[in-house]
C-alpha cells in the first residue's frame, strides 16, 4: 500500500463525545468532545483522522523485572494537531460537521485553515515514509522540537518512538531506551546497558 494514495478530505468535523482512540493495558489515547477532526481518505474510504483539540496520550513505559520495575509512565497532553491512521471505523459514527463557531473555538478563522494545517502535518508524516502495510493503528504527535513522536500499535504489540524515549513491547518482550540506559527484557530476564 503506497502512502500517496491517501489524501486529506475537504471537510472538517468535530468529535461529538469524549472518545478513546486506542486502549490496551499498557497505554491509551483519548480525544475530548468538540475537538476538530479532518478525515484521511483512501479510495473514498475514511482510513484515519487528523485531530486538533484536547487529547491525551498515556503509555506505561515500564518494565517489570525480578529486581524491581524500571521506567516510568509517559503522560502527554495533546494540544497540537495529531494524526491517527487505522481503526477509523469506530470513530466515524461519533463525528458531526463542525460549525464556524467550533472552528473559532480552536482559533481557526475558516475551514481551509484547518485543512491546510492538517495537510502540513500529513506531509511531514509522509516525508520519511514510502510504503506501509497499514495494519493496526499509527499515531503521529508533533513534539516540542517540531518533529513527530510515533506510536504504532497492533494488539499487544507497541512501538513508541519519541525524542527521548523508545519503547517496544510484544507481550513479555520489552525494550526501553531512555537517555541514560537501554533495558531489554524477555520473560522476566532482563539486561541493562547503562
Amino acid at each position, binding site marked *: 500500500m503506497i502512502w500517496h494514495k491517501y489524501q486529506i478530505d475537504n471537510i472538517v468535523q468535530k468529535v461529538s463525545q469524549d472518545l478513546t482512540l486506542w486502549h490496551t*493495558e499498557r497505554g491509551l489515547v483519548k480525544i475530548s468532545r468538540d475537538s476538530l477532526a479532518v478525515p484521511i481518505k483512501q479510495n473514498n474510504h475514511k482510513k484515519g483522522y487528523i485531530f486538533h483539540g484536547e487529547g491525551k496520550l498515556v503509555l506505561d513505559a515500564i518494565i517489570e523485572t*525480578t529486581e*524491581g520495575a524500571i521506567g516510568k509512565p509517559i503522560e502527554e497532553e495533546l494540544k497540537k494537531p495529531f494524526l491517527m491512521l487505522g481503526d477509523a471505523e469506530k470513530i466515524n459514527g461519533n463525528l458531526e460537521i463542525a460549525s464556524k463557531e467550533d472552528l473559532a473555538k480552536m482559533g481557526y478563522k475558516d475551514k481551509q485553515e484547518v485543512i491546510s494545517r492538517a495537510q502540513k502535518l500529513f506531509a511531514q508524516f509522509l516525508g520519511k515514509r514510502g510504503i506501509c502495510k497499514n495494519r493496526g493503528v499509527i499515531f503521529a504527535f508533533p513534539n516540542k522540537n517540531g518533529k513527530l513522536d510515533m506510536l504504532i500499535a497492533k494488539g499487544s504489540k507497541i512501538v513508541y518512538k519519541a525524542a527521548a524515549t523508545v519503547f517496544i513491547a510484544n507481550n513479555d518482550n520489552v525494550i526501553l531506551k531512555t537517555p541514560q540506559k537501554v533495558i531489554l527484557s524477555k520473560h522476566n530476564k532482563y539486561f541493562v546497558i547503562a
Partner: protein
Amino acid sequence: MSEEFREEMEKLREEIARLKEQIRSLSEKEEMKRKHGIYIDIGNRVRDYVEDIMECVAEGIHGELEKSVLIGPRGVRIIKRREPLIEEKETEVTLSKTAEIMSALSHEHRLKILKELLSGGKYINELQEKLSEITTSTLSSHLKVLEEAGLVVQEKVRGRYLITMPGRAAYKMAIRTAKFLERGKME
C-alpha cells in the same frame, strides 16, 4: 677385600646422606617452630584438601557479592562507572536525596507496603486487603510518599503499584542495616 671395603664405604656414604637429610629436615622444623610456634606436617594430600576448601569458600563469597551487587539471579546488569567510587563526592544534592529516601523509608507502614510489593505489582485494593491495619486514605498518602521518592511507580493505565529497582535496593538496605544494628546491640 678392597671390593668389600668399597661396598662398605658406599653404604656409609648413603647413610651419611640420609642422616644429613634428616638433620636438615629437623633444623627446618626447628626454624618453623621458632618462627610460628607449632609446626605440624599435614602432608600433601591434606594440604590440597584444605586448599580446595578455601577455594570453594572464596568462590562462594565472590558469587554472593556478584549476586547482590552486580548480577541479579535472573538477569545481568552491566554498570559502566564514569568515575571510581572513591572519588564520588557527597554533594549537598546526594545528601538531600539520601535524606529524602531515608525519610520515605522511615515509617513501618511504608516498609510493609514495600515488602508486599516485593512479590509483584498490586492494585490499591489488593494492598488494602493485605494491610488491613492501614486505612485507605493513609495507604494512599504513604504510596504518594514512596512514589515521590522513586521507590514505587504507579502504572497510569492499569493503576497497579510496582516497587522500583531503587525501591527494592533501598528496602533490602534498610532491613540489613536494622539487622546489623540489632546484632551489634546483642554483642
